């Protein structure tokens, strides 16, 4: 599932006009990578919540902002498993 989330995230960021050429699981969301600001993290979270039925709290946002795409995908996958698709 993680690979799927990585691909979904990259496509989402592309739609959000971020430069994701060459991005992969090792790319960071922070300034050294895609350089998402707080609103972009919020929008990405919304898109992923919608697609995978997971839920991010306000307290998750800062943590997400410094993850790599791969770490983010694993995080989404674990949430998705623990929720067992109950939320959507």
């Amino acid at each position, binding site marked *: 599932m993680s690979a799927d989330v990585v691909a979904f995230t990259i496509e989402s960021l592309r739609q*959000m*006009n*971020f430069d994701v050429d060459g991005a992969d699981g090792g790319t960071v969301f922070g300034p050294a990578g895609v350089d998402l600001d707080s*609103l*972009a993290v*919020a*929008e990405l979270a*919304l898109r992923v919540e919608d697609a995978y039925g997971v839920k991010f709290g306000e307290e998750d946002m800062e943590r997400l902002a410094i993850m790599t795409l791969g770490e983010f995908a694993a995080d989404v996958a674990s949430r998705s498993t623990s929720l067992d698709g109950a939320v959507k």
Partner: protein
Amino acid sequence: MTERARQRAVITGIGLLTPLGADAAGFFDAVCAGRSGLRRPADSHPVAGILDAAGFAPDVDPATVLPPAEARRVDRFVVLAMAAADAALADAGVTVGQDADPARTAVVLANAFGGLGMFEAEALARESSGHTAVSPYLLAGMLPNMATARIAIKHGVRGYSSTISTACASGAYAVAEALRLVRDGLADVVVCGGAEAPLLPTAATTFRNSRALAGGWADPAEASRPFDRRRNGFVLGEGAGALVVERAEHAAARGRPAYAQVAGWGVATDAYHPTAPRADGSGAATAMRLALADAGLAPADVGYVNAHGTGTKRGDAAEALAIRSVFGAHTPAVSSVKGVTGHLLAAAGAVEAAATALALRHGVLPPTHNLDDPDPDCDLDHVRKAPREAAAGVALSNSFAFGGHNVSLALAHPGGPLWT
């Protein structure tokens, strides 16, 4: 307490995006030639079927004024404002940080609607797709102050900034605020003006339903006819106007020429009705008198009045009455550019201050388009049919608004004595 010298202010840069195009020189040529910028909306446009005529500003790719990720989610009024501000600063030869102290540079960009278009789209998305469809970027893209804020961010402006919202008078209020900032020694350079993007289904419909708009004209270019006997409303338009208002000595030290001096301002409030003007034009007249007094000028000094002149029955008649009450029987030359631009709401006052400055600079007064048969209720020395060559030393630019806000700006030829 030390008394500071009253500083003089000049216009050194103009940036316009109007139904007449995206450059100031072309704008003034079109106004003088009576080339209308008003069109019937294309069938694909959201206001098709709502508006018979409208003034469309040039398309601006948001990515040309903002970074790609930012460009995605801002309202059109922000994009228009930023493009106009970029153009005005370039015209003035100002790079903030090089040619002007960031802490002594200011932005005052007005608008009335804010990002109503973006809000409407997000509201519809929420209705059809639920709350996750609402963008986190909405506020950063639609708040009325976001034009001011994003201009400041882009150009590194660290001094005063604010947003004025007095409906159709907003743009001229912004110029007045710029004059005050410069005069009081609080800024050397002020990017001021207004932007509006009201060509939206709900906004256009409420104007139509309130019977404010011109109607029944087969040719959209004939629909806007200020002071004409057959006028029957205004034509809605979108656009942005930005001026660089600069401390005169600051401009002189940079060796920059000025379009005009901003010599005075006057504001008066009708306290009468949410949308209708006082029929006797007394609020408008007071604004003009105050502008002249502020500039230390007399009515006889004024050679030209750039009228608010929207093309509504009551508004034009009240303004004509106001002009006559200020100037007596021998009124200065009067014209309104709205015959070719339509009414750009919060952008109008800034665009028209620019038109007035250009008229002073060139010694050419633009005509009122479609003024074929002047209404006896609007008995004035109209400039019509053709531009008039006249070396007007001083001009007033009027803007009046829903809410009863009346503002008049006194501009003076840049080569004349520097009125304070």
